[in-house]
């Protein structure tokens, strides 16, 4: 597989945008500048980035309640995302969706979703639309380990398999459904084996290795585009932060994982691993990485300024957009 310099730089930029955006969002939500429920993806940057790097602009994605990473990886604008999180009129959804519901149809982003497992049939239908409309666009469907226990997971894999639809199902297994360890509520150790039940390929992927994710995703996307049907990828990863920003308020003194476990996963940081590879490969210099980081910091600062200075929606807009 040809990993050219531009592709590597794009991946680095994507992961950096996610990491910096999510870190800032966590802080802004903690400071109550962002209302509502906010779920961040710090530590899970590689799965979103590696999959979206294998997609074209016209390909589509569906996402989850923890969706900022997918939207950024598919090319989402930080300023309009941030404005949406702030509930501003300039946000992607004019302030009607918020953190869990960002959509950008021009980028093929059919949306984050507040209902676990809801994206699976939507992605399946998006793939069906490509068949009906006669295009060769592929749809990638992000979901978590929790969603793999929803009926929609099973119904969607069956439907996509029986109709050979151009969809790639990407399970980001971060080990927890809210505060419940995945293995205590899931019949299998690896979600990928569930592909066997639907007679489609299933692969376990190191979800913290963006290059491995990219390789598997490229193969699955090519297979989908060639009309050979869906693939299930299970990206093993980990959520550094809690399920939701501010979860201590719900949990009190209780905890559901050890500090040691969190630290072990932090040692497998997707960005540090990528930095090491990139520099050792000789394709990218440390200066390149620093430049991208600085550019992203500036982009993020501008996005926050945009969000803060944008107007709130007017109450008169409340009845707009129910119907066309």
């Amino acid at each position, binding site marked *: 597989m040809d990993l050219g310099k531009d592709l590597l730089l794009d991946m680095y930029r994507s992961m950096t945008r996610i990491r910096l955006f999510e870190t800032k969002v966590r802080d802004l939500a903690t400071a109550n500048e962002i209302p509502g429920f906010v779920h961040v993806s710090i530590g899970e940057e590689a799965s979103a980035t590696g999959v979206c790097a294998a997609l074209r602009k016209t390909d589509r994605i569906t996402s989850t309640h923890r969706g900022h990473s997918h939207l950024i990886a598919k090319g989402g604008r930080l300023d309009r995302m941030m404005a949406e999180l702030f509930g501003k009129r300039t946000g992607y959804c004019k302030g009607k969706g918020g953190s869990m519901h960002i959509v950008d149809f021009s980028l093929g982003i059919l949306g984050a979703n507040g209902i676990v497992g809801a994206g699976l049939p939507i992605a399946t*239908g998006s793939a069906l639309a490509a068949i009906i409309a006669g295009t060769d666009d592929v749809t990638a469907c992000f979901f978590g380990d929790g969603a793999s226990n929803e009926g929609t997971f099973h119904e969607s894999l069956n439907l996509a398999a029986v109709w050979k639809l151009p969809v790639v199902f990407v399970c980001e297994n971060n080990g927890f459904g809210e505060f419940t360890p995945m293995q205590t509520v899931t019949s299998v150790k690896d979600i990928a084996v569930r592909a066997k039940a639907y007679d489609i390929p299933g692969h376990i992927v190191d979800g913290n290795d963006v290059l491995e994710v990219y390789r598997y995703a490229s193969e699955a996307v090519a297979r989908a585009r060639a009309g050979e049907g869906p693939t299930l990828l299970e990206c093993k990863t980990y959520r550094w932060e809690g399920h939701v920003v501010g979860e201590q308020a719900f949990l009190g003194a209780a905890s559901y994982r050890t500090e040691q476990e969190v630290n072990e996963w932090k040692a497998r940081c997707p960005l540090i691993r990528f930095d090491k590879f990139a520099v050792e490969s000789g394709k990218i210099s440390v200066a390149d990485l620093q430049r991208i980081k600085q550019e992203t910091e500036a982009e993020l600062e501008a996005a926050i300024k945009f969000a803060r200075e944008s107007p709130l929606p007017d109450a008169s807009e409340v009845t707009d957009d129910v*119907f066309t």
Partner: protein
Amino acid sequence: MAVTTYIQAINQALSEELERDPLTFVMGEDVVLSAFGATKGLIDKFGPKRVRNTPIAEAGFVGAAVGAAMAGTRPICEVEFASFFYCAFDQVCNQAAKLRYMSGGQARMPITFRCVYGAMGGAAAQHSETVYAQFLSVAGLKLVVPSNPSDMKGLLKSAIRDDNPVIVFEHGALGGHREEIPAGEHLVPLGKAAVKRVGEHVTVVAIGAMVPRAMKVADRLAKENISVEVVDPRTLIPLDEDTILSSVEKTNRAVVFDEGHLRGGAATDIAALIGEKGFDFLDGPVRRVTTLDVPIPFSPPLEKAALANEARLEAAIRELVGR
């Protein structure tokens, strides 16, 4: 003008719209062979790409219709019995209904859902329910309840061309009803009620399969010089409030006649509208004649006792007019 049944009207509407727009397609449970006949023969004309049997997995295929609509096609999605929507409540109520609004108007959701509802004799509670009330308070859905073949064809065609999610409720007992329907392009707009019979003494707002029954009661009472106006709203969302209120303004009395349940039902919703906006027109309370608040029973005498019927409508009218 050709004589057509309610089911044939559905078939004609589907065939014409599939012919008209290559981005439309039919998916659902047994649409190839077609249990009730509504989609019969479409497979021969439009092929397996556009006429698709789904697995009996409502959450999956209703959700897929949502995704297909968001991605630019126009699915016509059949859920065989309306009660099966309970298996796909998230996909209809959280996804289809809300995603346009939640995306700030970015999403278009041109889905037509078709389903058979209502009691057709001994089908028991899970295959006989009138479920449109369950969708009345979910903002973002349009609800269509055709009462005759002509409206069925014209409303269904309008639903398919609408860029919003529309559920078309087809009453199982109306399938064989026949009438002449206009030849050529026949569209009935969503949101326009029909005054099915002009009268002076009382307005009966009848929904779906209750319309022909209300007409029969009106015929009978006319012999006693009780003049009944029958209004068919045709669509519950959007609701043609003006036609309903204008009728009540004239007759000063209102009965709402619906096969749905009483509590939280469509009759209750329309009665509240009349009570709130038409209070000054009224000479008496707005009466609701609905099915009793029990699951629809299986055994014929029990089913008959539960369902809204002509005798109860007639009694309500007589009470209001004092005769």
